């Protein structure tokens, strides 16, 4: 099936558009779409140009597939579309991994956590979730790290306080 130039072109566009995804997710997505095309062509029972074009049209533009994969984050579709058109130009430089949003998020998570307790890391996490440079999985892991460590003292506080509930009031002072 990969010998079909239409399909090859479509998968190439999908691969180019999938730059915001991690390598694993990109490979997985390509495999799924390839499988889907293969199965649709198998069902159609023909591999002529019209059938292939119909199958690809039903799938929709590769940029939209990737945008849906990036969880419909604001601006994801636009940036994905932009990246795909940039990828058409052979000498196009790869998109930088860092934007202002990412830098501010990291500053809030590090320095912000020291100078603005609670507010800094939470605001940093908010910006991380707004960014399209990290995958949802990475955002979830970062959020869990921050939230677990913020809540841990409370859990320890309750764990330590529970046995002292039955302690006579002021009894230990005298």
């Amino acid at each position, binding site marked *: 099936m990969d010998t079909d130039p239409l399909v090859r072109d479509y998968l190439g566009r999908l691969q180019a558009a999938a730059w915001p995804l*991690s*390598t694993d997710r990109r490979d997985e997505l390509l495999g799924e779409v390839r499988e889907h095309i293969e199965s649709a062509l198998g069902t159609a029972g023909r591999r002529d140009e019209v059938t292939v074009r119909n199958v690809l049209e039903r799938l929709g533009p590769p940029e939209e597939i990737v945008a849906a994969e990036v969880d419909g984050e604001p601006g994801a579709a636009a940036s994905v579309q932009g990246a795909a058109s940039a990828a058409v130009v052979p000498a196009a430089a*790869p998109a930088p*991994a*860092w934007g202002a949003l*990412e830098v501010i*998020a*990291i500053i*809030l*998570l*590090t320095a*912000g*956590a*020291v100078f603005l*307790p*609670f507010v*800094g*890391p939470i605001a*940093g*996490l908010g910006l*991380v979730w707004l960014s399209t*440079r*990290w*995958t949802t999985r*990475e955002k979830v*892991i*970062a*959020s869990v*790290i*921050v939230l*677990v*460590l*913020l809540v*841990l*003292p*409370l859990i*320890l*506080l309750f764990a*330590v306080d529970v046995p002292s509930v039955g302690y006579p009031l002021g009894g230990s002072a005298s």
Partner: protein
Amino acid sequence: VTVSLWIVLIPLAGILAAVFLVAMLVRRQRR
């Protein structure tokens, strides 16, 4: 105890998350 734990854990939480996120960006950029 809770407050002193927080003084240590809040920056630690932010720094750990930041290190993880930066590592992910750097890894992706190298590929």
